[in-house]
C-alpha cells in the first residue's frame, strides 16, 4: 500500500496556512507602503502573542466541543468574566495567597463546566440552549460579584506569571542571545525528534514519508521558529504566556491526535450511533468536553485579568465568537468529526493578524468589524471549495 503524500496534497491540506501567510504578506506590504512601520516589528510580534493568547486557549477547548458533533459553548465569555471577577476579589480585595486563589479559580471553572456538561451530556439539553443560559447566568453572577465595578490593579506577584518576559534581565544583548539560543534548541529538538521518529518507523518496518518531505518540514518549521525568536529577542525576550500557550497547544494536540479518548471525540462527531455501538460512552465524552471548556475558560480568565491588569464586568465579551470562529476558519466541520488543534490555532492567528493589521493601518473600528465578517466567510468558503475539488479528483 502506497501513501500519496505529494506536494499537491500537502498544499491542499494546508490551504488555511497558506492563506494565513498570504494575508500576513499582504498586510506587511500595505503597512510598510503606507509608512506605518511593520507587521513584523519585534514589539508587534510580542503584542500579537499577548493579544491573542485568550483566543488560542479558548479555541483549543472549543475545538473539542465542536468535534463531538458541531456543538458549541456560548458561555465562554461570561465564564471568563466570572472567574476574572473571582480572581480580582480573592487576589486584590481579600489579598489571599496567589496560588490558592489561582487554584480556586481553576476549580470554579471546572465546576461551571461540569454543571453545564451534566445538563448537556446526561439530560441531553441541547448545548446551544444550555450554554446560552450559562452565558446569561455567569455574566449575571460576575456582575453581582463585581457590583458593576472594575477591580484593579493586580499585584506584580500575580501578573508576573502571565505578563513578564524571559530571561528576566534588563540587558538587551543577553536577552537577545538567550532568546535566539532557546529558538535554536527548539529547532534542534524538533529536528532530532523527526529523524528519530523516522528511524524507529523504519526499524519496525513501517512505511515512512519521503526523506525530502521530513527534511523540508523540519527546515520550514525551523525557519519560522528562528524568525519569531529572533524578533522576540529584539524586543524583551520570550513572553511567559508563550510557554503556557505552547503547553496547552501541544497537550491538546497530542490528546486529540494520539490518545484513545481523543479518538472517541472524532468517532462521536463522525457518527454517534456507530460510536455508541462500538462501545464508546458518548455521554461521558460530551461531559468531559464541556467540563474541559469550563477549565480552559478559567485559564483564559486568569491570563486576561493579568493582561488588562483589572477584572471588569464587561471582560470576555464576544470571546466565544472568537473561539468558535477560529475553529471553523481552521477547517473544523460544523457537523463535527473533522478538525485539528493545529487548524484552530491557525484560525486564531489568522483572526489575530486581521485585527492587528487593520488596527495598524488605522482602519475605522466599525469598518474593521465589517471586513472581518467578510474575510471570515471568504476564508471558509475558500477552504470548503478547495476541499471539494480534492474529493472530485
Amino acid at each position, binding site marked *: 500500500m502506497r501513501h500519496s503524500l505529494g506536494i499537491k496534497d500537502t498544499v491542499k491540506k494546508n490551504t488555511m496556512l497558506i492563506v494565513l501567510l498570504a494575508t500576513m504578506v499582504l498586510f506587511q506590504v500595505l503597512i510598510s507602503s503606507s509608512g506605518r512601520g511593520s507587521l513584523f516589528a519585534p514589539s508587534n510580534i510580542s503584542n500579537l502573542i499577548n493579544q491573542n493568547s485568550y483566543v488560542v486557549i479558548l479555541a483549543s477547548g472549543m475545538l473539542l466541543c465542536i468535534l463531538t458533533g458541531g456543538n458549541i459553548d456560548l458561555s465562554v465569555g461570561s465564564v471568563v468574566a466570572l472567574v476574572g471577577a473571582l480572581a480580582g476579589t480573592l487576589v486584590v480585595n481579600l489579598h489571599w495567597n496567589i496560588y490558592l486563589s489561582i487554584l480556586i479559580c481553576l476549580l470554579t471553572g471546572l465546576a461551571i463546566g461540569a454543571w453545564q456538561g451534566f445538563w448537556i451530556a446526561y439530560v441531553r439539553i441541547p448545548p446551544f440552549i444550555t450554554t446560552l443560559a450559562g452565558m446569561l447566568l455567569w455574566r449575571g453572577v460576575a456582575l453581582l460579584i463585581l457590583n458593576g465595578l472594575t477591580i484593579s490593579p493586580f499585584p506584580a506577584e500575580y501578573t508576573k506569571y502571565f505578563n513578564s518576559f524571559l530571561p528576566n534581565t534588563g540587558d538587551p544583548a543577553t536577552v537577545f542571545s538567550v532568546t535566539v539560543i532557546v529558538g535554536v534548541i527548539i529547532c534542534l529538538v524538533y529536528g532530532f525528534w523527526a529523524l528519530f521518529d523516522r528511524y524507529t518507523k523504519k526499524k519496525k518496518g513501517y512505511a515512512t514519508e519521503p526523506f525530502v518531505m521530513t527534511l523540508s518540514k523540519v527546515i520550514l518549521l525551523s525557519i519560522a521558529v528562528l524568525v519569531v525568536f529572533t524578533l522576540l529577542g529584539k524586543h524583551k525576550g520570550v513572553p511567559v504566556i508563550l510557554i503556557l500557550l505552547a503547553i496547552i497547544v501541544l497537550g491538546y494536540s497530542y490528546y486529540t491526535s494520539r490518545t484513545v479518548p481523543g479518538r472517541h471525540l472524532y468517532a462521536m462527531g463522525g457518527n454517534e450511533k*456507530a460510536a455508541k455501538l462500538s462501545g464508546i460512552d458518548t455521554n461521558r465524552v460530551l461531559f468531559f468536553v464541556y467540563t474541559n471548556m469550563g477549565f480552559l475558560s478559567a485559564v483564559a480568565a486568569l491570563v486576561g485579568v493579568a493582561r488588562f491588569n483589572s477584572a471588569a464586568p464587561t471582560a470576555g465579551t464576544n470571546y466565544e465568537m472568537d473561539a468558535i470562529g477560529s475553529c471553523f476558519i481552521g477547517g473544523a466541520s460544523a457537523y463535527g468529526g473533522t478538525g485539528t488543534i493545529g487548524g484552530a490555532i491557525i484560525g486564531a492567528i489568522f483572526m489575530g493578524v486581521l485585527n492587528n493589521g487593520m488596527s495598524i493601518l488605522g482602519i475605522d473600528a466599525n469598518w474593521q468589524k465589517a471586513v472581518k465578517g467578510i474575510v471570515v466567510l471568504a476564508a471558509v468558503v475558500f477552504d470548503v471549495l478547495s476541499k471539494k475539488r480534492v474529493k472530485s479528483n
Partner: protein
Amino acid sequence: METFLLEMKHITKIFPGVRALNDVNLQVRPGEIHAIVGENGAGKSTLMNILSGVYPASTFEGDILVHGKSCQFHTIKESEEQGIVIIHQELALVPYLTIAENMFLGNERGRYFSIDWDKTYSRADELLSLVGLEESSKTAIKDIGVGKQQLVEIAKALAKNVKVLILDEPTASLNDTEAKKLLDLLLQFKERGMTSILISHKLNEVAYVADRITVIRDGEVITTMDKAKEAFDENKIINAMVGRNISDRFPKRNATIGEVSLEVEHWTVSHPLYEGMKVCEDINLTLRKGEVVGLSGLMGAGRTEFAMSLFGKSYGRDITGTIKINGKEVQLNTVKSAIENKLAYVTEDRKSNGLILSKSIMLNTTLANLKEVSRHQVIDPDLELKVAIDVNRKLQTKCSSVLEEVNNLSGGNQQKVLLSKWIFAEPDILLLDEPTRGIDVGAKYEIYCIINQLAEEGKSILFISSEMPEILGICDRIYVLSEGRIVGEMSGSEASQEKIMKCIIQNQKGDQLP
C-alpha cells in the same frame, strides 16, 4: 378488450449493477384490491416507486397507462394529479403538526398567502370520520398511535381525490385489531368503487382482502392469481414467492461444532416508545462453538431488535431474560460490557449505525478495540496502521490505502471494513445482521467465506438475513422468528424455504382473519 384503470407495461429498472425489475407487466382493474406479494427485495417497492413518480419517467424503461392513456410522471406531484397516491411503509407525517395540517400538507386549503384554516379543519374532520377516526383534527400527530397515524395517511390520500391508493406494507407496525380495522376499511372503500394496490408479505391478510394477487420474484412477475377464477391457495403463493433453485453459491465449511457458547433464555424486550408493545417475547436460543445459526423471519419480525437488545441493551426497554456465555450467566448492560464479554454485533445498517463514513478505513477498523493499539490510553499510530493493513488484507478489502475514506468504497468493501472492525475486536460470538445486504453476488460469496473462516476458528455466529436461500445455504441450524417469537427451529439440512414460510404463516397472530 378489457379496459384497465391502470396498466404498467414492460417496466425494466436497472440500478447500478442490479436489474431490479425486468419486463414487468401489471394490470389493475377499476374497483379491485390488487395485492402484490414477494420476498424482501423482490422489487415490489421499486415497482410502486416507479408508479408514483419517485423514480422519474426517464430513469426506467416501459409505459404507464392510466385509463388507457400513456402517462409520464416526473415527480410525485404529477402522479398524484392522476389520482395515484402511495402510502409508504415509513409514515411521512410531521409529528408536531396537527392531523389536519398534515393531511393538507402541500395541498393547503385557501390561497398561497392565506390558508383557510376553518375550511382545512372542517374538511379534515369530514375525512377523518370517513376513515373511522374519532380524534379531533386539531390533535398533534405525535399524540396518536401508529395505527391511527396510518388512518390519517389514508385520510390524507382521500383529500387528494385518490383513484388508486397504493399501500406499502400498511400493517407492518400495527397490532392485530388495528390491522383488521385497516383491512376492513379497504373493503369498505372498495364497495364505494375505490381501487387499491396492497403490498404485503402477510399472506393471510392478502387472502382476506385481495381480488387478485400478483407475485413478484427477483424483479419479474411470476403469476397473477384471480379469486374469481380459483380460491387462493397459500401453498401455491409461497411456491411462487420462493421457488428459486439454489446452486453452489455457498462455499463449503469444515467447522467442528463444539460446546454451547451462548444461551439466551426467556428474552423479552419492549418497544422503546410504545408502552406495552413487546418486540421480542420469551425467546430461547443457543449457539455452539463453530456453529452458524440462522435467524430467519420477515421484516418487522424483531430480528434486529433481538440482536441489538442482546448487545449491551442497545435497543428497547424493560428487557428481561438471562444470557449465559460459556455456561456462566453475564449481565450485559452496556455495549462496552458486551464487547468485553467477547460479543460483537455487526449492524444491518452499515451507513448510519456501523461506519464513520467520513473517516479512514484504519480509524473504523480499530474503533471497537482501541486498547489493542494503545498503551496507557495513548495510541501507537504505527501499530494501528499495521494492524489495519493486516486485518483488511485478510478480508481482501479493495482500497488504495487504509487511510482512504470509507465513503469512497463500494458497498461490499464497506461491509468488509465493518466486519474487519468486529473481527479486530476479537469476539467469540458474532451477531451478523444482514451482512450481505445491498452488495453484489461476488462480494456476497466473499462474505460467506469470511463467515466460514470465523466458524472454523471456533467462533459462534448468529446469522440474520431476509434472504432465505442464503440462510439455507450457510446455516447449520435455523430459528424462525415471527412477530417477536421463535416459531420454529430446524437443522440446516431439513430446512427449506417452504417450511420456513409455513412456520411463519401458521404462527401469525392474525388468526381471527377467516
